């Protein structure tokens, strides 16, 4: 077997001629579509690829992308960000989180603003760094504000396992892990978006297995294709969807077969199962409460649970978005970023009013960076 070279992979997956050839196949086959394709790419990573490589412009008008809620930073409601800020403002505390979360506006402030005010707030590359920080600061409370979909949840579980094993007592967890299928169900139940096909998330499926999308074709009569992140992956997935439509099939197919299996990473699933369980309620920014759509620590791990330990200081009131920001409508697939009157004016990546502008996986951010399309 010849050795797989990275450059072969990348030259292959971004080759402009292959992209053109694929787009041509899609254009040819889309002529036979009985109705326009309203395609929801659930994951922000796919939104990013579609915008960055201008895939929409390569495809016929009959194929419309509806950007989904799969951006963990974008769906975080203000009251949860206020929790993070409240925790960071406690005495002798270090608050840790991942990447873009730092910049998302809460009700009055953001973690970035509070960091500038002198509070110890750090963005980690990996949850593993939390171990080192907790060990180096034994006299401080270290709070890990955990975010992410199924992709990032097992990493939090692996960290918990290490904390348990190493007997670390000053690291607490504020869990905001969310689940893809309930969010998709909530958007479909709403019924306004008229979605008739899905591009399924790639890395969520690496962990959970493509099996989590199997109910979708049955429930909503929509094809689902689990896609990789490269432009070629996304185009190939769209071609698979168009073919399903033209052959009157509704199935769950895996395009990203080099990384995704039906069963997923069972060790990672067991790790999540050990520490976490579904929450009865979790509010999604702009969408509202979706029952059983997020995870919380199980009762036996209450000693690590920041929400339980610091419950008396954490605000409980739900807080809605700024009236002019339409992130919620965008996350539900009912509007495009450039339908928003503050898009690109009052709201930019440097001065984000809404969460979809903060994260590089947010639809508004991708539209702003790669040129808005109508």
């Amino acid at each position, binding site marked *: 077997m010849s050795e*797989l070279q990275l450059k072969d992979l990348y030259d292959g997956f971004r080759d402009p001629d292959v992209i053109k*050839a694929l787009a041509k196949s899609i254009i040819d086959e889309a002529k036979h579509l009985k109705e326009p394709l309203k395609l929801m790419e659930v*994951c922000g990573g796919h939104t990013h690829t579609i915008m960055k490589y201008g895939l929409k412009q390569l495809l016929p008008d009959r194929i419309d992308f509806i950007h989904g809620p799969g951006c963990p930073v974008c769906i975080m409601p203000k009251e949860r960000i206020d929790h993070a800020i409240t925790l960071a403002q406690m005495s002798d505390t270090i608050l840790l989180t991942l990447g873009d979360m730092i910049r998302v506006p809460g009700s009055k402030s953001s973690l970035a603003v509070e960091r500038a005010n002198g509070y110890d707030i750090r963005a980690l590359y*990996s949850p593993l760094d939390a171990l080192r920080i907790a060990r180096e600061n034994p006299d401080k409370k270290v709070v890990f504000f955990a975010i992410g979909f199924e992709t990032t949840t097992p990493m939090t579980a692996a960290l918990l396992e290490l904390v348990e094993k190493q007997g670390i007592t000053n690291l607490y967890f504020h869990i905001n892990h969310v689940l893809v299928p309930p969010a998709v169900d909530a958007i479909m139940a709403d019924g306004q978006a008229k979605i008739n096909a899905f591009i399924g998330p790639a*890395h969520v499926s690496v962990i959970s297995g493509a099996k989590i999308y199997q109910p979708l074709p049955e429930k909503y009569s929509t094809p689902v294709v689990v896609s990789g992140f490269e432009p070629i992956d996304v185009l190939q997935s769209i071609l698979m969807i168009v073919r399903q439509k033209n052959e009157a099939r509704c199935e769950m197919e895996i395009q990203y077969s080099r990384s995704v299996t039906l069963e997923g990473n069972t060790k990672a699933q067991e790790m999540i199962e050990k520490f976490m369980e579904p929450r009865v309620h979790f509010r999604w920014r702009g969408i509202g409460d979706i029952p059983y759509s997020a995870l919380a620590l199980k009762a036996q791990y209450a000693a690590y649970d920041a929400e339980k330990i610091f419950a008396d200081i954490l605000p409980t009131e739900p807080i809605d978005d700024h009236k002019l920001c339409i992130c919620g409508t965008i996350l539900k697939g009912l509007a495009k970023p450039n339908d928003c009157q503050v898009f690109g004016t009052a709201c930019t990546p440097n001065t984000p009013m809404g969460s979809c502008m903060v994260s590089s996986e947010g639809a508004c951010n991708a539209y702003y960076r790669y040129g808005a399309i109508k």
Partner: protein
Amino acid sequence: MCLSIPSKVVEIDECNMATVDTMGIKRHVSLDLIADEIHIGDYILIHVGFAMNKIDEEEALQSLELYREMLEAMEEEERRQVIESDDNCENRTQA
């Protein structure tokens, strides 16, 4: 937060941490989420400092094969141009 760059395992230590090579960049990642035995030379997918899974080389090659087939479906002249420009592909010299 999503990178799908395959990383090659070049070293594994006693704490179940691997040193990987991602397009020339060396990083340390945890193998705690991987049930299978990982060997030097395997390709893995990484997310926030953890290996998520092993990448099946054969699958990756099969995907590439599909793209090659598509190239073959082009007109001969077009194909010649593609292959010639591919020889001069700037990505080749950077890797």
